[in-house]
């Protein structure tokens, strides 16, 4: 049995940030991640980030990943990569499976921080099982981790920031975006991201959906249909686009299985992506030894995930006696930066979603 002060599941922006914070406070830190490389989505985010200088705005996600990983390592965090955290048991023990050695192991930590991230939502489509249909995140993984262009002519489904950014990255990799399709009447991501595509001549179709994907052994043609104001297909409005790849970017759902297994109470939040573990402003769940951070606490972005990770890392360490002198001040600063990121017309909804969860948590009705 591995013993450690803090065990973090997930080495994405939230997990790495938590690892750096906890390590710097003096706690021993073990980070577990199923991937062969730490950094999570940061290494797929080759675009420059929004935010302020405090959030490393204007810097590409991939560079932020490198810096954060370096900082976590320097703080003494130990990484177990290619390792699945398969279960959390009643006695507060986490089960591990090493995918290379195929051996099982157990961890007993004083505090856990789950930074398990999110999973892409699926869109059922006729022909959706054909090779060439994939999540936008999968396309990003192919490009940025495997240096492989997923296809040459792409139909992107979804106009949120993920759909827009991945489309841009696909074009940078040399692919053509044959169409960007959105069921809602307007583009839902940031206008500046959409404009990068528009000025490159990408055709965008709002109030439109995929009615069928055709092809013999792989995607060859995508049939699109216009939708009326009730999102019902308009008969006779079908038109077809030639493509070899369909990328789906229709939102993310928090990955909460481990937290559920640990008995953490969930709360439904539409704006934060569905069922999320109930948690306080300090990122503590309804389980006394479990904190969480990043997309599993509600779908946001890498910059908010890093601040949440920091708060969780400092809080969890302080609770077991590390860095107690500076904890309150550091958490306050991170909290302020987090508030900064949740400002404005785009942050407001997420902020109110989070506030709702904090209020529910503070009521303590779950205890």
């Amino acid at each position, binding site marked *: 049995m591995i013993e450690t002060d803090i065990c973090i599941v997930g080495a994405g922006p939230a997990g790495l940030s938590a690892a750096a914070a906890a390590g710097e406070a003096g706690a021993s830190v073990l980070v577990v991640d199923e991937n062969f490389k730490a950094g999570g989505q940061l290494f797929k985010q080759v*675009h*420059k*980030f*929004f*935010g*302020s*200088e405090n959030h490393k*705005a*204007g*810097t*590409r996600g991939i*560079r932020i990943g490198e810096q954060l990983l370096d900082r976590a390592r320097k703080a003494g965090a130990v990484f177990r990569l290619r390792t699945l955290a398969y279960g959390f048991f009643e006695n507060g023990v986490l089960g591990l499976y090493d995918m290379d050695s195929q051996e099982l192991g157990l961890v007993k930590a004083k505090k856990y921080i789950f930074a398990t991230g999110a999973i892409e939502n699926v869109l059922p489509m006729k022909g959706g099982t054909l090779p060439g249909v994939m999540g936008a995140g999968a396309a990003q993984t192919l490009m940025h981790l495997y240096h492989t262009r997923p296809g040459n002519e792409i139909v992107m489904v979804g106009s949120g920031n993920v759909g827009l950014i991945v489309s841009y990255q696909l*074009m*940078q990799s*040399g692919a053509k975006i044959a169409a960007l399709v959105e069921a809602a009447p*307007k*583009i839902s991501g*940031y*206008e*500046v*991201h*959409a*404009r*990068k595509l*528009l*000025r*490159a*001549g*990408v055709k*965008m179709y*709002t109030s439109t959906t995929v009615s069928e994907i055709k092809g013999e052994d792989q995607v060859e043609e995508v049939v699109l249909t216009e939708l009326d104001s009730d999102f019902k297909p308009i008969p006779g409005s079908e038109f077809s686009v030639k493509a070899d790849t369909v990328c789906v970017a229709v939102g993310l759902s928090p990955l909460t299985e481990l937290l559920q297994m640990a008995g953490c109470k969930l709360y439904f939040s539409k704006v934060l992506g569905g069922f999320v573990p109930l948690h306080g402003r300090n990122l503590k769940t309804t389980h006394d030894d479990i904190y969480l951070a990043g997309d599993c606490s509600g779908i946001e972005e890498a910059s908010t995930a890093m601040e949440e990770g920091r708060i969780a890392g400092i809080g969890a360490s302080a609770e077991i006696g590390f860095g107690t002198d500076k904890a309150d001040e550091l958490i306050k600063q991170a909290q302020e930066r987090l508030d*900064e*990121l*949740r*400002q*404005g*017309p*785009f*942050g407001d909804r997420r902020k109110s979603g989070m506030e709702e969860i904090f209020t529910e948590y503070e009521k303590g009705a779950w205890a």
Partner: protein
Amino acid sequence: MSRYFPQDTEYFSKLPGYPSQERMKKGPVALIECNQCIPCNPCESSCRQGAITVGSQITNLPVLDEEKCIGCGICAAACPGQAVRIIDLSKEEGIVAFPYEYLPAPQKGQIGNALGRDGSVLGQARVVRVDAPKAYDHTMVVWVAVDKEIAKEVCSFGGKD
């Protein structure tokens, strides 16, 4: 494409990051088409002249001080939204600079299409300079010479059809 977003220069010219016609005629100046209250301020922090102000509320739109701005192009490379260009109407030809992140890199002297906000071909563009210092981290700032009439609309460069 105009059914998605405003495309006309008239609309953008009312934004606080848009320089005056008189200033454009004096020499290179930033032209900031940032119209959404995104929490973001690298334009402000990258500017060495202190010519761009977002302020403590980082969702504010950037305000340009056109007298301080020297049109260096650093903000054009820094803006994650690629919403900043540089414009210079002081010469016979209009000069425009914009961020560019595709390969192959445009080459000095290369002639191609001047592309508008919706990707339409507005006319011819001749590359006069490509800035790609390490600090821009793979964002090139491409300077092109175009017809003055279209300069305010030009925001990208495309190969000849």
